[in-house]
């Protein structure tokens, strides 16, 4: 069956450094891929998405890279700030709009 998983459960970075969060997926039918951020005690919040026909998309301080050859997705956060500390999920919804989320990576930003 389809699965979406993350390589690392935790990531700790120094404030100001760049962060890279990785995600592997198995559902080749996904038209797009999404990153969500979940702060403690809150629901997930949409960060950025990328369509399957793209390999890179940039937002404000964030960049998502998609490598369909190896079914790998990454989220890059530039100049990581304490407010970026959260759990980050990738999601790869199949055509039916049924979202599949990975287990998440907990990002901790050290001052």
């Amino acid at each position, binding site marked *: 069956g389809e699965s979406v998983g993350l390589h690392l459960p935790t990531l700790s970075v120094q404030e100001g450094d760049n962060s890279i969060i990785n995600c592997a997926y198995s559902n080749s039918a996904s038209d*797009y891929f*999404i990153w969500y951020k979940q702060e403690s*005690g*809150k*629901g*997930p*919040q*949409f960060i950025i*998405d990328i369509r399957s026909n793209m390999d890179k998309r940039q937002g404000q301080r964030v960049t998502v890279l998609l490598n369909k050859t190896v079914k790998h997705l990454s989220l890059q956060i530039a100049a990581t700030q304490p407010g970026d500390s959260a759990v980050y*999920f990738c999601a790869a*919804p199949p055509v*039916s*709009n*049924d*979202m*599949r*989320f*990975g*287990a*998440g990576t907990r990002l901790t930003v050290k001052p």
Partner: protein
Amino acid sequence: GAGVSQSPSNKVTEKGKDVELRCDPISGHTALYWYRQRLGQGLEFLIYFQGNSAPDKSGLPSDRFSAERTGESVSTLTIQRTQQEDSAVYLCASSLGGHEQFFGPGTRLTVL
């Protein structure tokens, strides 16, 4: 309201009791999702409502779980004869039918 709201925010119940969780989606959002999130884990899809179409119930873990939605407004998730393994945060999300979902704060359910 400005966002998705859920109630109660916390629910503690005894094993075997029934619970009802409520979700108020963003006004006008046609799609509504329920997810379960166990401690330290990802989001587990439960059920999906889209407009007047039959809901996608493929994620419901057992027949103790059911959900209803009134038109394109409020939804309730009911868990009958709760078990300790039902303890989790239950998240609701709504969308306009596209892929960006707006999540509520969740209901933390504890079954003793």
